[in-house]
């Protein structure tokens, strides 16, 4: 979607607009800052309005102390803190005005996204003692467990603080952004085509979703049309990505409930799915295939993929049936890590996480892109909001993905797979995709030479990591690993 049609708001009007959005069944999606000119900063807000496919975009030029929207839309809390850390814009009356992306002990000479910040100057990290919430009352029995950033097993880096008594967790605080690579800044100065390689490497297990949202943002800025065959193949690739992610998810969930054979079988199915990816594209992560205007080369899935997928589906359905009838597994999932529907909405849960808490939302159906508008997209929803519901949503999505791929294989039209696509200088665009983990946005802005001036990435894990702690407070240590696995989060996507 071309984002030149946006509403300009005065800082004083922001809260009123945000409140109206909330009262009319809309939803805030994200906020970001950028520099239209070296000395002028601008804030952008992206929102969904009830019943509208187009996203609403608000623009606002900040004075010092823009009113924070976090008290109206709690999910905005993290977005605003990120803007403060990276752009130096302060928000007034922010309920949690602390560092998020930059850790305590980092004191840059100026905000790292400022045009004045020297290229390639690394931030210096001074070791500081971490500030933890102060406990009041009788605290003698409360223990603090700092866990990470290097954790057990092959896992991504992140630090977690547990305040606990015996088995019971009183308070849980994740400290992320150890993996912050400054990816958004790496896009600056690149050509549109050059950015695809970068977008594929923001979150490895979301390579297609990221590249797709990025390409669609550029295509929106350039106002070009992607050939039909490429649109269908993009759906095929996106669903293949969902497939291997969800299969691995189930295997990993079995790992946390110590269902050993279930773990082995889930991970074996994921491996088979990745090997199909290789056969189809040469890449286990479906990389090096998407580009601006379509695909880099044609794919030939006809004649073999359908049969392979059907064999995979048969094995998967036996596996899923056994999982759903194993009491020892289900006992650990049911009622574990319940995410209340209200909290899910307020804190911005997305993807399978919000669908497991009763929200019937999916970008593929509600804001269709690629060829999804011409395909029947079924959106599984559960009400319970526990680990079992989150697993069930993903299990249903596996079946839905395979059905979608089979449909694409039936309908796949012949024709070219790429079109000329050149974004003019000073143009801007918004792209999105429903990644295996939820809503993913890319906003792109070009400068007057036609190279990238700003790329903003709103990844689903950024949203879901904010939500996750709400299901941990008051739970117990034994359930923690299961609960975390049931969210299926990536840290790379969140930290960028």
């Amino acid at each position: 979607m071309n984002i030149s049609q946006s509403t300009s708001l005065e800082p004083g009007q922001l809260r009123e607009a945000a409140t109206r959005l909330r009262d009319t069944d809309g939803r805030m999606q994200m906020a970001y800052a950028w520099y239209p000119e070296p000395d002028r900063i601008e804030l952008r807000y992206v929102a969904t309005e009830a019943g509208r496919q187009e996203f609403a975009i608000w623009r606002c030029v900040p004075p010092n102390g823009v009113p924070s929207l976090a008290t109206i839309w709690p999910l905005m809390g993290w977005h605003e803190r990120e803007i403060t850390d990276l752009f130096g814009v302060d928000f007034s009356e922010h309920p949690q005005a602390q560092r998020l992306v930059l850790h305590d002990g980092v004191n840059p000479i100026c905000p790292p996204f400022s045009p004045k910040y020297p290229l390639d100057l690394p931030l210096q990290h001074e070791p500081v003692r971490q500030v933890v919430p102060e406990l009041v009352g009788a605290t003698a029995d409360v223990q603090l467990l700092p866990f990470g950033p290097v954790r057990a097993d092959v896992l991504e880096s992140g630090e977690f603080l547990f305040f606990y008594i015996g088995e019971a967790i009183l308070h849980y605080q994740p400290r992320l952004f150890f993996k912050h690579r400054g990816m958004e800044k790496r896009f600056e100065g690149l050509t549109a085509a050059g950015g695809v390689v970068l977008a594929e490497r923001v979150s490895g297990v979301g390579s297609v979703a990221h590249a797709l949202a990025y390409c669609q943002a550029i295509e929106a800025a350039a106002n070009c049309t992607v050939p039909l065959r490429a649109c269908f193949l993009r759906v095929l690739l996106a669903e293949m990505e969902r497939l291997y992610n969800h299969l691995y998810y189930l295997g990993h969930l079995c790992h946390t409930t110590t269902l050993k054979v279930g773990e082995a079988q889930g991970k074996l199915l994921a491996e088979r799915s990745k090997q199909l990816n290789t056969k189809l594209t040469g890449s286990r992560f479906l990389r090096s295939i998407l580009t601006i205007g379509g695909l880099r080369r044609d794919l030939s899935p006809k004649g073999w993929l359908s049969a392979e997928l059907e064999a995979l589906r048969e094995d998967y359905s036996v596996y899923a049936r056994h999982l759903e009838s194993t009491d020892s597994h289900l006992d650990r999932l049911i009622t574990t890590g319940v995410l209340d529907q209200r909290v899910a909405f307020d804190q911005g849960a997305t993807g399978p996480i919000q669908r497991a808490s009763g929200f019937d939302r999916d970008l593929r159906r509600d804001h269709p892109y690629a060829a999804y508008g011409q395909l029947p997209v079924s959106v599984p929803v559960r009400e319970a909001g526990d680990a079992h519901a989150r697993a069930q949503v993903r299990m249903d999505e596996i079946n839905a993905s395979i059905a979608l791929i089979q449909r694409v294989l039936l309908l796949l039209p012949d024709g070219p797979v790429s079109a000329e696509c050149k974004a003019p200088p000073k143009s801007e665009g918004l792209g999105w995709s429903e990644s295996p983990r939820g809503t993913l946005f890319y906003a792109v802005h070009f400068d007057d030479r036609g190279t990238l001036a700003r790329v903003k990435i709103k990844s689903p894990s950024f949203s879901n990591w904010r939500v996750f702690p709400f299901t941990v407070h008051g739970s117990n240590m034994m359930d923690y690993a299961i609960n975390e696995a049931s969210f299926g989060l990536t840290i790379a996507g969140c930290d960028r």
Partner: protein
Amino acid sequence: MPLWTLLGLMEGKQTAPWPLAEGADGQAGFIGMPRYNPANCTDVCQACADVCPTRAITMRPTAEKADGKDGRLDIDYGRCVVCQLCTEACPTEAMTPSSDWAFGAQRREDLIWRTPPLRDRAPGKRRTQSFRRSLHIRHVDAGSCNGCESELQALNNPFYNLHRLGIFFTASPRFADLLLVTGPVTNAMLTPLRATYEAMPEPRWVMAIGTCAVSGGVAEGGYASGHGLDGVLPVDVYLPGCPPNPAAIIHALMMFLERVPQRVKGGQLDQ
């Protein structure tokens, strides 16, 4: 639970015989590092160097082109993210796609293109016999995109079944012989990474997995990201790839244990 055991047994053996015996390694169709054929390279073109996102390909200074045999390009496979842009940009098939992935190397310079392939490899540091069938690994994610983790996690699926080779991941650096690092080393991970290395008992070794850990990859530099492991920790094995597939990781580990030979020399695989 007995039902699952029965089901598991009924599945039969799912593990690939490779690398202990001949057989499929699971990488059919994999597109790996591009191959350079200097004979096809023309004098007027630098399309590949222009599109390379990580400056893995650079034009050799004119003075050094004279002998002609090495071609006109400097190619550092330690910087390659396998994006295939060069193979698409090249008008003369001097850069072509290949299935080459076994790029584990003990010396950084083995990843740099030369012709003819270097034969004078000095033997790497000898490791004691006792590690060869019982290696314990501690992994540290120093800011990767999670692609390398995804492939490392795949090593313990039934298809690759890393345990059968006597190679294990361990939770504590105190029990680890080998530190396996992914990611470009972000500023925030530098201290935890060094602390993990310091916690390992000697003798200890380090392997850089993925192009980010070898040289920084697409995220190299900037305000938050590093340039890989060089200058941070002493590296014993480099394995570029974006990400390297599980078979490439197994090959690099087996090579580290001196159970298979290194295959890459002068940026090319032995055939």
